[in-house]
C-alpha cells in the first residue's frame, strides 16, 4: 500500500520479485538472509528427496496455515501503513470473528454431521457476510473511540492503548463464552484427493482459494478504486492528502473496516478449518501474523501475504522435521532477526518517514 516511488501504479508479481531481488543486494541484512535462505533451501531439498510424500504434505499444511496468517497479517500491515500503529488488538478482532460466527451458524440450524449441500452453502455465505460487516463495524468503533483521539499524540500512546484494547476484547470474549476451548462445527466436506501419497483436502483448497480471492479483491480495490487511492495517498503523506481534499478520518476508518473484514473472514475460516477456537487464540495467532507482516515488509500488502505464507510454511516444517517445541523459537527468532538486520522486511518497502 505504501510506495517507495511517487508513482502510483499496479504491482505485479514480477515487480514484487524484482523488488525482492534488488532488496537482497548489497547490505549486511540482505547478505545474512540470503545465506539463511540458501541453507534453509538446501536442508529442505535434502528432506524432500528423503521422503517426497511427507515433504509435499507438510507444504500443503504450511500453505493453508500461512493463508490464514496472511489474512490477519494484512490487517496489521494496512493499519501500520496508514497511521503507523501496530494494532495489537487485531489478533483479537480475528478471534472475535470466529466467536460471532458461532451463534450465526447455529441460527441457521446447521450442525456438523449434516451432508454438505445448498443449506450449508447458503448459511456459510450469509454468515461470512454478516461476520465481515459486524467485525468491520467493531473495528471502526474501536478506532473511533481508542485511536482517533490519540492521532496526534506521541506514538507510544496509541500503542499502549492498542495493547489495552486487546485485553478488553479478550476479556469480553471470556465473559461471553468462558475460558474453555469452543468447538466450531465441522461443516466443510471431508473429501480429498490423493496425489502420489499426498492428500489434498477440499478444506485445504477452500482456505487457499478463499485467501486468494480476498487478497486479490483487496489489491484490486487498493489499486483501482478512489477510496483505495485515497488510502495510498494518506499512507504516503497525510498532510498532502488532506490538502488534496481527502477526508482523512473517513479514509482511516475505511482502512480499519477493510482490515477487520479480512480478519473476520479469517477467523471464521480458522474455525471451519481447525474446528476449535478459544478466547486467547488471537493473542498468539496475532503475534505470529504480526511477525509475518514484518517479515514481508510492514506496510506492504504483497509483503503481508508473502510473509504469511512463509511463516506458515516455516512453522509447519519446523513442527514436522525438528520439534513443535522449537517452532515458536524459530518464528519469533525470525522476528528479532528481521528487526535487527532488515527492518524493512523481505520486499523492502518503507513507509515514508513523516
Amino acid at each position: 500500500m505504501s510506495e517507495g516511488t511517487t508513482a502510483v501504479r499496479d504491482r505485479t508479481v514480477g515487480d514484487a520479485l524484482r523488488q525482492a531481488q534488488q532488496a537482497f543486494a548489497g547490505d549486511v541484512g540482505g547478505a545474512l538472509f540470503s545465506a539463511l535462505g540458501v541453507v534453509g533451501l538446501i536442508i529442505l531439498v535434502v528432506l524432500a528427496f528423503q521422503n517426497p510424500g511427507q515433504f509435499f504434505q507438510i507444504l500443503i499444511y504450511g500453505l493453508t496455515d500461512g493463508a490464514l496468517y496472511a489474512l490477519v497479517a494484512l490487517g496489521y500491515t494496512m493499519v501500520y501503513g496508514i497511521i503507523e500503529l501496530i494494532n495489537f488488538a487485531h489478533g483479537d478482532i480475528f478471534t472475535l470473528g470466529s466467536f460471532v460466527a458461532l451463534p450465526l451458524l447455529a441460527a441457521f440450524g446447521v450442525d456438523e454431521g449434516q451432508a454438505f449441500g445448498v443449506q450449508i452453502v447458503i448459511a456459510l455465505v450469509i454468515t461470512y457476510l454478516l461476520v465481515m460487516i459486524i467485525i468491520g463495524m467493531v473495528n471502526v468503533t474501536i478506532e473511533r473511540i481508542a485511536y482517533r483521539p490519540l492521532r496526534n499524540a506521541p506514538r507510544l500512546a496509541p500503542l499502549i492503548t492498542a495493547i489495552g484494547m486487546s485485553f478488553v476484547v479478550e476479556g469480553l470474549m471470556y465473559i461471553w463464552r468462558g475460558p474453555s476451548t469452543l468447538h466450531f462445527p465441522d461443516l466443510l466436506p471431508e473429501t480429498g484427493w490423493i496425489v502420489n501419497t499426498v492428500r489434498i483436502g477440499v478444506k485445504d483448497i477452500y482456505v487457499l482459494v478463499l485467501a486468494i480471492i480476498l487478497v486479490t479483491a483487496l489489491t484490486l480495490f487498493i489499486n483501482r478504486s478512489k477510496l483505495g487511492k485515497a488510502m495510498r495517498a494518506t499512507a504516503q503523506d497525510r498532510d498532502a492528502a488532506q490538502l488534496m481534499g481527502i477526508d482523512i478520518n473517513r479514509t482511516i476508518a475505511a482502512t480499519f473496516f477493510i482490515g477487520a473484514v479480512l480478519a473476520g473472514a479469517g477467523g471464521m475460516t480458522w474455525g471451519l478449518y481447525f474446528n476449535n477456537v478459544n478466547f486467547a487464540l488471537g493473542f498468539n495467532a496475532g503475534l505470529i501474523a504480526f511477525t509475518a507482516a514484518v517479515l514481508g515488509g510492514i506496510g506492504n500488502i504483497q509483503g503481508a501475504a508473502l510473509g504469511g505464507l512463509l511463516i506458515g510454511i516455516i512453522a509447519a516444517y519446523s513442527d514436522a522435521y525438528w520439534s513443535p517445541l522449537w517452532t515458536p523459537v524459530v518464528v519469533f527468532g525470525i522476528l528479532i532477526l528481521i528487526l535487527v538486520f532488515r527492518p524493512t522486511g523481505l520486499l523492502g518497502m518503507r513507509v515514508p518517514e513523516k
Partner: protein
Amino acid sequence: MVRARGLVVLTLAVFVAAACGGSTGGGSAKGTIKIGVDLPESGAAASSGLPTLHGVEFAVKTINDAGGLEGFKFEVSNFDDAVNGAYNEQKGVQNVQQMIGDSKVLGMIGPFNSAVAKAEIPVAAAAHFVMISPSNTNPCLTKDLPTCSYHPQDLRGGNPNNYFRVVTTDDFQGPAMADYAYKNLNIKTIAVLSDSTVFGKGIADAFQVRFQTLGGTFKRLDYPGETQNDFKSFLTSFKNFGAQGLYVGGTDDKKACVARSQMKSIGFDVPYLGGDGIETAQCIDDAGSNNLNINATSAGADATQVAGAKTILDAYKKAFSGPHDLGGYTIQAYDAATALMQAIGRAAKDNGGNLPSREQVRVAMAATKGFVGAIGTYNFDANGDNDLKIVSVYTTESVDDPATSTGVCATKAPKICFVWKQQFNFATS
C-alpha cells in the same frame, strides 16, 4: 451523632447475624469444622474440578446426615485455583494461605494438579496443615526418584509430612497404558507426545520407558501446550514413522484432545492413548467427530470393581443427578474427604472431645490404617502415599444409557462415554 450510633448498632447486628448464620448444616452440638477444598473449577479445567468438588460435598453430606463426628459437623470451604481456565500454581498458593488464615479450616482436599501441589506443599507443611489429594499422580511429590528434578523432603522443608493422596502415581499410570497398548492392543510401534508440562512430560517419560522395556519402539515429540493450533505437521511425521498408536502425556486444557480431532483428516487413524488428563468430557468434545477409541488411564479402581462401591455410586448419583456430575475422580475425592474427616474425628476424640489442632489432625491422618473407602482400603506410608497401586483403563465408546456409566461422559455427544476396560494392579505384579 445519632447517625453514628445507629451505624454502630447496625454493624453489631450484622456481625451477630453473620456469626449465627454461618454454618450450612444448622447449629450443632460443638460447632462446625471446615474442610478446605482447592480445585480448578472454571474454564476448561472445570470438567475435572467440579465433579471432584461434588465428591467432597457428597462425603460431607453423608457424614453430616449421619450426625457428624464426635459432635462436630463439617462444612466445605471451597476455593478455585484456575485462572483463565487453567490450573494456576500461584492462585493455589494464595488459596492455601487463605485457608491457613482461617482457624476453622483443619485440613484440605486437593489440589487436583500435581504442579499446583508442588507449589502448595511447602506453604502447608510449614503450618502443619493436612493436604489430601484425590488425583495428584506425579510421583516426585512423595518419592525421591532419580528422574525427579526435586526431592520431596525439600518441599516439606524439614517439617513432618502433611501431604497424602488416595491415588497411585504416574510411575504406574504410564506403564499401565504401555502394558495395555503392547499386550492388549498389539501396538509395537508408537508415537509419544507430551504437552511439555510437569505432568505431561512425567507420564510420557514413564510410558515410553516401559514401552521400550516391553520391546516396542517409539518416536517422541513435545508440543508447547495451548498455543499449538495446527497439529497436522508433526502428526504426519508420526504417521510416516509407522506409528500404530499415539500416546499423549497431557491434559485437555493444553489441547491434548484437539490433536485427536486432526488425526482423521490426515489419514492417521490409530488408537489414541493417554493418562487421566484426557479422561474428561472436554476431551471427548474437543475430539469432534474422532471421539471413539480414545483410551485413558485413571489412577484408582473403577466403582464396578470394588464390592460396595456401587451402592455409594448410586447414592451419589441420586444426590448429584446432573449429567456431568460424575467425573474421573469423584469417588476418589469422596474417599479423600471421608479419610480426612475420620482423621479429624479421631484427633478430636484423642483431644478429649475438643476441637483438635492442625498438628493433631496431621498426626491422626498419618496414622491412618486400614481406612475402608468406597473404592479401596487405604494405609498411608511415611511419605503420604497409599499402598494401592491400581490403575484402570477406560475407552470411549457409544453407550445406550449414559446415566449408568461409571466413566465420564461427553457434554456435546452425550452417548459417548469412557467405558471401563481393564485394571492393572502393580502391587501384585
